[in-house]
């Protein structure tokens, strides 16, 4: 039986999280998932627009809901793979009902573009939710040809998928088990990760880096304590913060963590026997190559990005004598 949904990819899937998109497309076939992209969708506003102006922020999301409602043929479920997109779509639908005056105003704005949305007419769901609850773990298990045996994975969901969870779709708001169960179905060794829904820092990497670095450090440190080989995530923002900012976080705290961050869809693709290159593996800045050799996956070498030389910590304030050829010698 195939599962047909309307699909809202979100901006990141086209750029920073292309690996998420590619790996999702690679597993749609084996899972009989039909994802029909909403025509001409626009950005959801992330966590930024709503902090500037309320009605425009909800009208922006409303346009996507209205387009999806127009396009709905046979399905009224919209699937979003990104946490922020998922929450924004779900929240607009929820608040337009909870506060009818908001629904009215959004529709007045939408009318200026010839659109209308009836709140409650669509179901907004996250990708992991439909894979677990509609496709089902039996179907997932049946596709596994290369079990992720011996790979220790920290399941990391981040904040906005299990919370606030308006429709009560998740097993728990703080320690949900869906991702654990999926990864176990793939044969992975899943660690009982206590920080699985703690925050990755969100947009604080851009506006308050020290706040973000501390949140990133906690997650990486904890996964490292549990001897995870890698972390599996389901959100482009989480992946970006933990992967792309891991180097800066290391420099900030003088640590040396190396924790690869992959999308859960990439791990599904590997377990289904797909080639690493078709799953966007290698696009991560903290290379997963060493970790994946544990399950016999060869990742083609990529152009390595050299980390910036850490700033020399001046210990004395005076130049110290150096041995010729010593490693600490700095270029003149």
């Amino acid at each position, binding site marked *: 039986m195939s599962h047909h949904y309307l699909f809202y990819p979100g901006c990141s899937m086209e750029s920073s999280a292309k690996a998420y998109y590619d790996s999702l497309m690679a597993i749609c076939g084996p899972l009989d998932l039909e994802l029909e992209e909403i025509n001409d969708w626009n950005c959801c506003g992330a966590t*930024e627009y709503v902090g*500037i102006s*309320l009605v425009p922020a*909800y009208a922006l999301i409303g346009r996507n809901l209205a387009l999806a409602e127009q396009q709905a043929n046979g399905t009224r479920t919209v699937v979003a793979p990104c946490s922020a997109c998922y929450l924004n779509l779900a929240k607009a639908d929820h608040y337009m009902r909870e506060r009818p005056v908001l629904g009215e105003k959004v529709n007045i*704005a939408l009318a200026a573009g010839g659109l209308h949305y009836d709140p409650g007419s669509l179901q907004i769901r996250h990708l992991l939710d439909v894979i677990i609850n509609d496709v089902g773990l039996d179907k997932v298990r049946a596709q596994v040809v290369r079990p992720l045996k011996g790979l220790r994975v920290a399941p990391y969901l981040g904040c906005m998928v299990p*919370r606030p969870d308006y429709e009560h779709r998740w097993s728990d708001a703080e320690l949900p088990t869906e991702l654990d169960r999926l990864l176990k179905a793939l044969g992975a060794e899943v660690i009982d990760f206590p920080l699985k829904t703690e925050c990755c820092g969100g947009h604080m990497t851009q506006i308050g880096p020290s706040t973000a670095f501390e*949140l990133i450090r906690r997650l990486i440190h904890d996964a490292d304590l549990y001897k995870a080989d890698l972390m599996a995530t389901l959100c482009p923002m989480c992946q970006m913060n933990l992967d792309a900012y891991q180097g800066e976080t290391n420099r900030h705290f003088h640590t040396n963590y190396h924790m690869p961050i992959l999308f859960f869809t990439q791990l599904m693709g590997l377990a289904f026997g797909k080639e690493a290159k078709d799953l966007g593996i290698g696009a991560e800045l903290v290379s997963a190559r060493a970790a994946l050799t544990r399950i016999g996956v060869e990742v083609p070498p990529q152009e390595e990005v050299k980390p910036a030389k850490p700033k020399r910590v001046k210990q004395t304030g005076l130049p110290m004598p150096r041995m010729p050829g010593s490693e600490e010698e700095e270029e003149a």
Partner: protein
Amino acid sequence: MSASHLTPSYDPDNPNLRFLEEVSAATAGVSRLEMCIQCGTCGGSCPSAADMDHTPRLLFAMIRAGYREEALRSNTPWICVSCYHCVVRCPQEVHIADVMYTLKSMAIRAKLYRDSTAPDFSQTFVDNIENYGRSFEFGLATRHYLKHFPLRLPGMAPMGLGMLTKRRMDIRPRRIQNIDQLKAILARAKELEIAT
């Protein structure tokens, strides 16, 4: 110093005494801000509370007491990471994260923030959406870092380079087809308020 200068003198016409109602009405759903019982679960659940001027609980007490300017100047809403831990733990089911968004937009309107880094970031993000219909990470990051974190740029270079060489960042923005429709919707939306 007496404490009296901290207490707004009671004046039924003082608009600040209605500040709580104002914040609540300007929040997306039914905020339930009036229901706060000052238990402090929010601050205790907050991963970034250490960097906040006021915990959410204290901020809500200030709002209730009519400390408009102090509340809008607080960095708290800008440090909130929207993780919704407080929201799911709040025994009164206050929509705390959404109240934070309301306070940000009010602070921007009243020009009461101390540090323009966060408002500028949000505004640049929104400018891109209004022009293209999509977010534009490369344009956003370069404009933002040049203005607010020029000293971080050298440290950022390997990451930026990595994102570019691994084709994780578009140098040019993507535009939706019907951008005129979106612009018309947003222009109309900007004339509308939900608070009465």
